[in-house]
């Protein structure tokens, strides 16, 4: 039988260490909505999403109440819209109409984000893919809760540099289109290499074509719990350190597994995966950077940070894998800057640079995330940064992503405030040297060899 110590430990994690289930994400296939008439397509999409998700928020809240565990977000991911809208959309404006439908139905069912305004163009772009990508600035500036992601490369296909170059401009245009709100549109736009089909986290969630009609994916979190556990083993060796992280990750993930199973049973939707991620929030004590500090580096970014992050990421997976029957999504420590107070402090202290963040993304999920850069950063420079990050994903057979925010009208020394879970960030300097000739070449970077791994 459960004893008092165990009950108190769990409740302490929830009340004092920010343990929560970060998101229940309902993946919905929209393939059966496809129609060549735009008005009909919009109706089909609205009805399918509404019927599938109308009880999602209520069910999430009820589970939260019964188990006493906060479930922070309830979200929806849908089939990449470039596939769904291809037959009906002839212009950018047509695609943006679908974004508005998604926005409308998401607000109606009460979720806080809907992901899947996406295109998968790792090898080439169809005309629908291109139209969707070109419609992103309009779509993200005329909606509130729609998130967009574009997969521009993979280990199997190489990197679509035409798409990378295009995305450099699209990120900038999205920043311009939402400049009244500190270029917030860019916080809802992710560029991926090796994007997973079952990611529950925004802004990169979409419902892949390999998935069932509907699926429940759950993202757990708990940087604060890991940090507190590590406080108790200060000065101990790496074996003790790693064991502690592993055991903590196990406990955190088991909560996610329970919530996922309950949500699946109550909604009558199959359980997909648990995403084992340490996802920070701007709340004090809910920081991945603070874990790195606890492991022994003065600030995130100091020498040793990449090694510390590598071991953290690996131990979280080792603990989490046994705790859940199906693991997927991104599964790793997130290192967004604006959403993590410890990261913000490290940037402000001059310890953390864009280049060090890039190195850190080699050993964890997901990539250059929520980084504010000067608004006058060139399109080609953004494309170059995207290309670098995609190359890391391609060669290392892992998911990498870029979510940069060129804040129009602001520069190094300024701070930008996004609010809520998105936090705030100091504008970080970007390398000023040009990569124009490189990114303007056009075409594809070929897929790497999969042997001779030295």
């Amino acid at each position, binding site marked *: *039988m*459960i004893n008092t110590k*165990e009950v*108190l430990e769990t409740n302490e994690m929830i009340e004092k260490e920010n343990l929560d289930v970060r998101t229940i994400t309902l993946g919905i296939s929209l393939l059966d909505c496809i129609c060549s008439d735009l008005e009909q397509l919009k109706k089909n999409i609205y009805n399918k999403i509404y019927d599938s998700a109308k009880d999602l928020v209520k069910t999430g809240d009820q589970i939260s*109440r*019964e188990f*006493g565990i906060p479930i922070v977000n309830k979200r929806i991911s849908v089939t990449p819209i470039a596939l769904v809208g291809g037959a009906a959309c002839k212009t950018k404006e047509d695609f943006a109409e679908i974004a508005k439908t998604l926005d409308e139905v998401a607000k109606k069912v009460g979720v806080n984000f809907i992901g899947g305004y996406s295109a998968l163009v790792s090898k080439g772009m169809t005309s629908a893919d291109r139209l969707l990508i070109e419609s992103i600035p309009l779509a993200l500036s005329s909606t509130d809760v729609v998130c967009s992601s574009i997969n521009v490369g993979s280990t199997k296909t190489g990197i679509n540099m035409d798409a990378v170059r295009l995305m450099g401009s699209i990120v900038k245009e999205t920043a311009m289109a939402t400049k009244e709100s500190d270029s917030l549109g860019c916080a809802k736009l992710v560029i991926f290499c090796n994007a997973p089909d079952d990611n529950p986290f925004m802004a990169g969630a979409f419902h892949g074509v390999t998935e069932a009609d509907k699926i429940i994916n759950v993202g757990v979190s708990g940087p604060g719990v890991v940090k507190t556990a590590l406080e108790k083993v200060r000065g101990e060796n790496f074996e003790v350190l790693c064991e502690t992280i592993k055991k903590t990750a196990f*406990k955190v993930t088991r909560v996610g597994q*329970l919530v996922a199973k309950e949500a699946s049973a109550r909604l009558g939707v199959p359980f997909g995966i648990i995403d084992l991620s340490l996802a920070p929030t701007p709340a004090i004590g809910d920081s991945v950077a603070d874990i790195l500090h606890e492991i022994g580096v003065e600030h995130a970014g100091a020498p040793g940070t990449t090694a510390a992050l590598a071991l953290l990421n690996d131990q979280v997976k080792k603990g989490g894998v046994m705790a859940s029957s199906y693991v997927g999504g991104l599964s790793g420590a997130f290192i967004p800057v604006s959403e993590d107070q410890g990261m913000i402090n490290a940037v402000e202290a001059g310890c953390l640079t864009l280049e060090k963040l890039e190195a850190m993304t080699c050993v964890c999920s997901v990539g250059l995330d929520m980084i504010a850069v000067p608004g006058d950063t060139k399109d080609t420079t953004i494309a170059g940064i995207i290309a670098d990050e995609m190359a890391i994903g391609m060669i290392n057979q892992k998911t990498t992503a870029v979510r940069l925010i060129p804040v129009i009208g602001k520069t190094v020394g300024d701070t930008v405030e996004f609010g809520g879970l998105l936090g705030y960030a100091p504008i970080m300097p970007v390398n000023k040297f040009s990569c124009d000739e490189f990114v303007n070449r056009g075409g594809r970077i070929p897929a790497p060899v999969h042997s001779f791994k030295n």
Partner: protein
Amino acid sequence: MKKTIITVVGKDTVGIIAKVCTYLADSSINILDISQTIVGGYFNMMMIVDMAGTSKDFNSVADDLEQLGHDIGVVIKCQKEEIFDSMHRI
């Protein structure tokens, strides 16, 4: 059997257990186990109860206990057992 864990935390005062138990008895909720300690003047109680016999639903029991806790100056939480089981048992 619908096992639920009730935790009561707060400043120690006369009659905490009595009031909680009276409510549970009136609601036909059977107590399976109680443990209680005082740490630094703070009252800490954990109860394992079976809610199979009550006609009230989980939400109203949780709300009532929360209100009762508020009235006597302690925090009462009601959680289904599975969350502790899944975290602490393989």
